[in-house]
């Protein structure tokens, strides 16, 4: 078996999320160092507050300020903080029922070690220096032995309430493409295009994915195809893509390489965009140091007969 190909893959996205009125008040409150809960019909105060009662689904709007002191209801010692977590030094994850609340809030507790943490211990909020209206405006909790904080009776009305948050997310992967695609990529590095044949229907798939999508069986027999092929269909791209240094308009085409039963797609160059046509014969153009053809250009052969590629549109 050839060496497994691997590459780092980062999936990163800043999710922009709109807020309901209760979420907006809560997060705006954190910015102003005010903690708000929401009252349910049966008199419970939910912190963090939600838009709808988790039991009855009733709409909740009755905001009430609670204390920034509270009691740990459960905890877990995290000796190896991970990326994105509230503290860089070891800390305790805690659920804290703030004074005046009936439910608990998840956050971090800054404590010297696991022996100094227990369920029932008293804590208070440590506010972040810079606050934007986010759960991270609470930097963490810290141990607190004095009198409970008395909330100020805030109504949840703010001059400039938040309407949305941006929540960045990032996940890191090590991508490996699997057996069939690894073989395809390996061959490309020698400027060869290698597909795989289905043992059942005999079709040659390029690029191969390891399975015949029609028959549901593994493909294994490797078949070199091309390098020449036929444009089966195409489109003219008129909008410049971000980070792509190609002058518009240009042609992007489906190309059936000779010997392949599936068209792949690539850019067509070396010919004015408005002269590209179905049936045009093309060949790959490789540039130094790349693992795939930069584009395809006309070979100068006569156009292919429609009947030779009509199944490959």
């Amino acid at each position, binding site marked *: 078996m050839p060496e*497994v190909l*691997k590459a780092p*893959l980062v*999936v990163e996205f800043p*999710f922009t999320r709109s*807020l309901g009125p209760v*979420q907006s008040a*809560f*997060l705006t409150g954190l910015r102003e160092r005010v903690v708000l809960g929401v009252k349910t019909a049966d008199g419970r105060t*939910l*912190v*963090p507050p*939600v838009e709808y009662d*988790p*039991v009855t689904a009733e709409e909740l709007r009755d905001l009430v300020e609670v204390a920034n002191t509270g009691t740990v*209801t*459960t*905890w*877990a*010692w*995290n*000796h190896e903080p*991970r*990326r*994105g977590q*509230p503290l860089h030094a070891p800390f305790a*994850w*805690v*659920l804290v029922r703030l004074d005046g609340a009936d*439910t*608990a*809030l*998840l*956050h*971090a507790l800054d404590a010297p070690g*696991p022996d100094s943490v227990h*369920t029932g211990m008293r804590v208070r909020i440590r506010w972040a220096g810079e606050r934007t209206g986010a*759960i*991270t405006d609470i930097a963490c909790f810290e141990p607190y032995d004095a009198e409970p904080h008395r909330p100020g009776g805030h109504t949840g009305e703010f001059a400039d309430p938040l309407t949305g*948050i941006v*929540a960045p*997310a990032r*996940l*890191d*992967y*090590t*991508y*490996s493409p*699997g*057996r*069939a*695609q690894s073989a395809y990529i390996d061959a490309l590095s020698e400027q060869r295009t290698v597909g795989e044949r289905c043992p059942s229907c005999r079709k040659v798939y390029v690029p191969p*994915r*390891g*399975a*015949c*999508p029609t028959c*549901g*069986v*593994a493909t294994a027999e490797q078949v070199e195809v091309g390098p020449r092929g036929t444009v089966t269909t195409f489109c003219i791209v008129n909008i410049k893509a971000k980070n792509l240094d190609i002058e518009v308009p240009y042609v992007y085409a489906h190309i059936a390489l000779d010997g392949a039963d599936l068209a792949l797609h690539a850019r067509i160059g070396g010919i004015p965009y408005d002269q590209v046509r179905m049936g045009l014969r093309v060949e790959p153009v490789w540039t130094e140091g790349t693992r795939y053809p930069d584009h395809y250009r006309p070979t100068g052969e006569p156009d292919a007969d429609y009947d030779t590629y009509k199944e490959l549109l």
Partner: protein
Amino acid sequence: MTREIAVVAFAQTDHRRSTEESSEVEMLMPVLHAVLEQTGLRTADIGFTCSGSSDYLAGRAFSFTLALDGVGAWPPISESHVEMDGAWALYEAWTKLLTGDADTALVYSYGKCSPGSVRDVLTRQLDPYYVAPLWPDSIALAALQAQALMDAGHTDEPALAAVGARSRTDAEANPHAQLKGQVPQGDYVVRPLRTGDCPPVGDGAAAVILAAGERARELCERPAWIRGIDHRIEAHGLGVRDLTDSPSTRLAAERAGAFERPVDTAELHAPFSSQEVILRRALRLGDDVRVNPSGGALAANPVMAAGLVRIGEAAARIHRGASDRALAHATSGPCLQQNLVAVLEGDPR
């Protein structure tokens, strides 16, 4: 008139720490072939196909459509997908068969945890406003639940260690399990949970075939009849729930008829040792019930497939006459947030 529906075949991969040499479809396809072969069915004979997976695990967009290549979806098949454990795909297929629209269903699921960090990936399923920005990983949340359970006096560290040890000892008889035999309980990962209380991280796939009525009897000598199946979800706010209990499991079990007669076997989807303690109490399982003879999720936890594997393992025991009435459970979300319970029975012998 309710149709009788049974699990008639089950197959799974060997679950491994990494399957980097295979794409998802390359990992899945042998299992699809194995489960079809058990029944003699071909793709074209299957009335409905349903799968469960999550693109976030391996970071591959639309991986479930690529996985369909392994089914052979031509001519076009009747197909669906859930971004959940395959146990929920099975629920959808069961519903489809109940309507009479199909007599057979192929259900499969797969999870490739190895390309990413599953602890971090699972944070993305949490409340995006109040919780996800703190990146609390799956082990941290389970540890909060375990501590609550200890504070309530329902368990302690030695009892949790015993759950892990029993699971991995049982897994020695399971050729597909990833972690088996004597495994050190290890250090704290997130206290109070130690390595031994946590599931192995691994890749794997599973598939089952469902069939209705007489069709089931034709395809399987002893079908595992689904006498009841139900799933329930709890509030997403962790601080709203009583983490020491699982009312959603209890209610699902009630609706599935689990309490009508005792079961002899239970396959519980408890990725953490502490969660088995909670599930045993919620399901009122006595010491006479064989719990997780396969080794359970503590021996192999291919995320998105581990729940379906529980149903498959329970059914397989009925198929081979090792059980007459078994309970299978699957979970989803943090701290047993959502739970599915199925009750399976074999025909009297």
